[in-house]
């Protein structure tokens, strides 16, 4: 019990705890500094997440706009160039029946060797086998095929649980050393929604074809 309630004041007086000596005072200031650093770090985490959400929102809005304008490939390129940092992109269709990739669209990439190829043994193959996007930073691979040398990421495009294709991101911009946390999140978003947008685009093309 702290207060007596009889008007005579508290039975136990609240005391301000003073530092016992100079060292304690120093320790307290260090603690305060430590807490401030922690607070700043947490704030930075929340802000980073906020900026990521803004980017995801913008990417989503751009894909929706692309459905109306019929420029889904351009939208994917724009998102990757502006928000991730690559201007070497190719989109491939995948045919599970014959395990063949065929080039659907590209930007900034030499495509002679990329028109059509079998799954092979490299990153494309692993993406198909595992049903998961592949990143050179995260899953280095020894058996890269000649056209995979400059490949940074192989993003799978799933349509109704089947792999319908991949977005291949080759070289990053010179000022971009590697993919970062927010990039992986954006690519995860593209994995699902670029696939849906491309499926929409194909249906629309089929419907409007003479």
């Amino acid at each position, binding site marked *: 019990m702290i207060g007596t309630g009889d008007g005579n004041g508290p039975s136990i007086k609240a005391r301000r705890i003073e530092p016992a000596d100079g060292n304690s005072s120093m320790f307290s200031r260090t603690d305060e500094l430590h807490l401030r650093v922690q607070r700043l770090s947490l704030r930075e985490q929340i802000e980073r997440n906020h900026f990521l959400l803004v980017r995801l929102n913008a990417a989503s809005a751009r894909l929706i706009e692309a459905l109306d304008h019929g420029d889904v490939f351009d939208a994917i390129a724009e998102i990757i160039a502006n*928000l991730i940092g690559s201007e070497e992109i190719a989109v491939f269709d995948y045919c599970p029946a014959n395990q063949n990739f065929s080039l659907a669209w590209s930007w900034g990439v030499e495509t002679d060797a990329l028109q059509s190829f079998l799954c092979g043994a490299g990153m494309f193959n692993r993406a198909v086998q595992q049903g998961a996007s592949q990143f050179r930073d995260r899953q280095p691979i020894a058996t890269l095929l000649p056209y995979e040398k400059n490949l940074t990421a192989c993003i799978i495009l799933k349509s109704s649980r089947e792999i319908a294709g991949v977005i291949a991101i080759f070289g990053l911009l010179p000022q971009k050393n590697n993919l970062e946390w927010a990039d992986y999140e954006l690519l995860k978003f593209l994995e699902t929604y670029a696939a849906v947008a491309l499926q929409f685009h194909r249906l629309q093309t089929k419907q409007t074809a003479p």
Partner: protein
Amino acid sequence: MRKILVVDDSYTARLVNRMIFSQKTNYVLVSAVDGKEAVERAKHEKPDLILMDIIMPRMTGLEACRVLKKDKETEKIPVILLTTRGEEQYVQEGYASGCSDYLTKPVNDAELLDLLKAYLGE
């Protein structure tokens, strides 16, 4: 209130800037989609700062920057070039065109906001 003219042919880039500035600052935002429109809007809107891409149709950011710096009406407006082109040649051309700062995409949003605040205040 401070006004920024954002110039980019990429809808995604304009959208990200619009979202971030509207949520994190009180700046008024106007936009243009190429260098030619940027020059026209700069004369009309008199922005406090221009944030401009380089590779754009009709007129590049470098050309637009040169035009803006030659015009008495717009010469004092700071221009920040924000582009995917990080090569030294572009950086040098950027500063030669009269830009105040040169940033490369993908930009760190927090750093961009700090830079804008340094030019425009909170």
